């Protein structure tokens, strides 16, 4: 209990520093401090915003399906949620395949038995769902037919009617023409009659089109349960396929199995070599020994090649943005300090800053692809990529490639400016009294820099870095989409290009992932900024 009351203020301070001041009344309520006021605050600043969010989601759910686009309806929140689950399952499957690939010994055998038993269960389920889907299809067919029947009958009736009307009109026209021949009527009246008939035909056409539309409407909009049943059956089918694939990876695709096979091959070749009778036979067997043992070695180094899941894309985007951000910080802070210290440097750099700051990231990306691309004429054998992607490197999962470097450089180029300008401002706005202190103490250049100038400009510097990181994250997604560097940007771009039934929902999912990560990055920077501020953090918005 004592501990409980002791941590109250540290806790409040913590949520304040981390920028989650919304939870302040909740904590105070837990400590029973002015409960009425806290409840009021919770309602005002937590409950109302949550209700507002729900209203927005409801509006989305309501309006989405009503907007028909070429790539389907706008997905509802539930569809996006389902797609998120599918993405999660996809990454789980990759993990399962990966473990299956590298399992060996008794564990492998156990796993095979387990997966086989699972397959039996899943196949049962799958066939049930398949039957169910067929049943639903039948049902729906019957239903649709029932709905179509009256309309079809109407259509046939209309057809007959039209046919009869046509014959009648033709007879009338002929009769009128005969009268004309006899000179009983004028030619104009015949033309008028034909015109009237034409109008009647148009009317009939419109009527039959209306009925056709009605039929199409019924055919094109099967009840939802049909689609759901088919989807469920397909999903289960997919799952069964995945388990079969797992068996593959556990048996002939398994790493140890492959190696064992190759060693066996080389052993037989050795035996054959010993028993060889002709020189040509001996050479052939010796070659076989070398090739199979080499293959065994390279297999031993192999790793499971995972597919690009959304988790991988996210990790790669975050890594890229950090590389770019670090480059930006390492360039911007020293230059910013120099600008702040020396007005000549500032004057020299002002034109460069003013001209290059507004340039679009897309332009930078293209320039970097050309300029930096020249450093990696052959990325496969470049030492940087060999080092980054060697199996022993813990960062090998990022699959570093030139496109990642271009994206990181683009991020750096665009994130540079806010950090640079803010650092220069922070350094040049240093309190004159602090500099006087340094003068009286006769501090040298370096200790003046590290003891007085940098600490006093840290808050503004971090404010700049925070803006930089935000800009970098926004730029990165665009750069990845354009440079097809793996990452969330590419995820979005690929989904846009392949146009499956789930792609629209996937794009919206990516939108949320990007937003949430951007939010987390910003919070991290706010915390850092507050930690370096010496004036109670009141200067931080």
């Amino acid at each position: 209990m004592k501990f409980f009351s002791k941590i109250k203020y540290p806790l409040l301070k913590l949520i304040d520093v981390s920028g989650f001041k919304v939870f302040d009344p909740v904590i105070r309520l837990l400590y029973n401090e002015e409960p009425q006021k806290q409840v009021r605050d919770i309602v005002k600043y937590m409950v109302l915003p949550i209700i507002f969010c729900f209203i927005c989601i409801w509006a989305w759910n309501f309006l989405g399906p009503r907007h028909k686009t070429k790539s389907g309806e706008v997905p509802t929140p539930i569809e996006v949620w389902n797609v998120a689950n599918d993405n999660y399952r996809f990454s789980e499957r990759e993990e399962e395949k990966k473990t299956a690939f590298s399992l060996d010994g008794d564990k492998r055998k156990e796993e095979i038995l387990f997966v086989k038993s699972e397959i039996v269960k899943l196949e049962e389920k799958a066939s049930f769902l398949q039957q169910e889907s067929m049943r639903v299809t039948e049902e729906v067919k019957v239903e649709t037919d029932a709905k179509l029947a009256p309309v079809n009958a109407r259509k046939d009736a209309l057809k007959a009617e039209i046919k009869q009307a046509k014959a009648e009109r033709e007879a009338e026209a002929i009769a009128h023409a005969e009268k004309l021949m006899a000179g009983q009527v004028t030619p104009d009246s015949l033309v008028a009659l034909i015109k009237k008939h034409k109008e009647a035909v148009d009317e009939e056409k419109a009527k039959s089109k209306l009925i056709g539309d009605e039929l199409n409407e019924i055919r094109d909009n099967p009840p939802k349960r049909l689609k759901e049943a088919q989807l469920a059956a397909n999903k289960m089918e997919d799952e069964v396929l995945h388990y079969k694939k797992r068996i593959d990876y556990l048996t002939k695709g398994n790493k140890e199995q492959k190696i064992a096979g190759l060693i066996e091959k080389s052993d037989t070749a050795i035996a054959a070599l010993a028993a060889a009778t002709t020189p040509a036979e001996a050479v052939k067997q010796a070659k076989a020994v070398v090739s199979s043992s080499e293959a065994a070695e390279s297999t031993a180094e192999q790793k499971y090649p995972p597919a690009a899941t959304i988790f991988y894309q996210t990790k790669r985007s975050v890594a890229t943005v950090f590389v770019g951000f670090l480059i930006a910080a390492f360039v911007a802070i020293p230059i910013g300090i120099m600008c702040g210290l020396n007005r000549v440097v500032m004057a020299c750099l002002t034109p460069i800053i003013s001209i290059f700051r507004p340039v679009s990231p897309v332009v930078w990306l293209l320039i970097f692809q050309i300029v930096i691309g020249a450093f990696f004429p052959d990325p496969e054998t470049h030492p940087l990529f060999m080092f980054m992607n060697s199996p022993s490197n813990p960062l090998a999962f990022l699959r570093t490639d030139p496109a990642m470097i271009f994206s990181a450089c683009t991020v750096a180029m665009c994130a540079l400016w806010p950090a640079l300008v803010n650092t220069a401002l922070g350094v040049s706005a240093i309190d004159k009294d602090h500099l006087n202190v340094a003068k009286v103490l006769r501090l040298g250049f370096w200790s003046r820099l590290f003891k007085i100038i940098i600490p006093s400009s840290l808050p503004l510097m971090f404010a700049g870095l925070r803006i930089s990181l935000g800009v970098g994250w926004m730029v990165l997604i665009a750069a990845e989409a354009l440079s097809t560097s793996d990452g969330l940007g590419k995820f979005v771009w690929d989904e846009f290009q392949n146009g499956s039934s789930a792609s629209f929902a996937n794009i919206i999912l990516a939108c949320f992932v990007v937003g949430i990560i951007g939010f987390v990055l910003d919070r991290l920077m706010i915390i850092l900024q507050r930690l370096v501020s010496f004036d109670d953090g009141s200067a931080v918005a």
Partner: protein
Amino acid sequence: MSFLEIDNVNVGFGPPTSRTEVLENINLSVEENEFVAIIGFSGSGKSTLMNLLAGLQPPDVGEVRLNGEVKTIPGPDRGIMFQNYSLLPWLSVFENIELAVKSVFPKMSKSEREEHIMNYINMVKLTPARDRKPHELSGGMRQRASLARTLSLKPEVLLLDEPLSALDALTRSDLQDEILKIWGGDKRTVVMITNDVDEAVLMADRIVPLTMGPGATLAKEFTVNMERPRDRHTLNDHPEFMRLKSEITTFMLDINKESKAKNPADVVPMPDVQPKDFTPPSATLKFSHLGNKSITPVNETSQ
């Protein structure tokens, strides 16, 4: 030759054609272990004079000598205590002093340094606040910390630039006593700038008035012949205190008057404005329901 000397110094600004002298013909000599107060109106160039002594601003003409040596750049031998504390806000009290001690006595060992710093923190009674940051301290505590930092440099001359003018009256008198006590225990040459006659008479051995700028210069000095320690409670009954106080005050006011007379342009002529009459002409009618008291506009011209 005195300990600290200002010799015929001029300080000004602007191009040679239209130069404005801030200080002109400044001559001051301070003996060792003497407490000198320089008193002047705001804007008369007091801070410029202090910057000159500290070496933060070089003189245009003349020179500043300490122990016979010409001083042009600042250094720890002239410890200056700034009006607005100038503590580094990202360092605690201890670290602020440590930074100063480290750069002035680089050869001191760690334990020695810590002892040295704590000695001065104790002296200004800030021991409980040694690890506080400046923004967590009150104004008086900040000025104490600043004093401790300045003293820890072991300066030959202590320069106090209106050290107490930003404090409230109670804290101020408290710190005055504190400074006097420290000075009494550890005699040192002090030059203090102030705008408070009481403070000057209470603390100093000698009071030098600074005339009004531009072209301010030091006027005839007053020697304070009062035995120490001086007790602020009985001081008001001390005839010498009363005499000095009234003499200096009269002198300062005269200076002010003189300077105004010298620079009539400084007196901004007031525009010739007559009060306007905004009372509605029908006021008498409108307010008639109040009774028989008729309200008539007060208009000087009509009377």
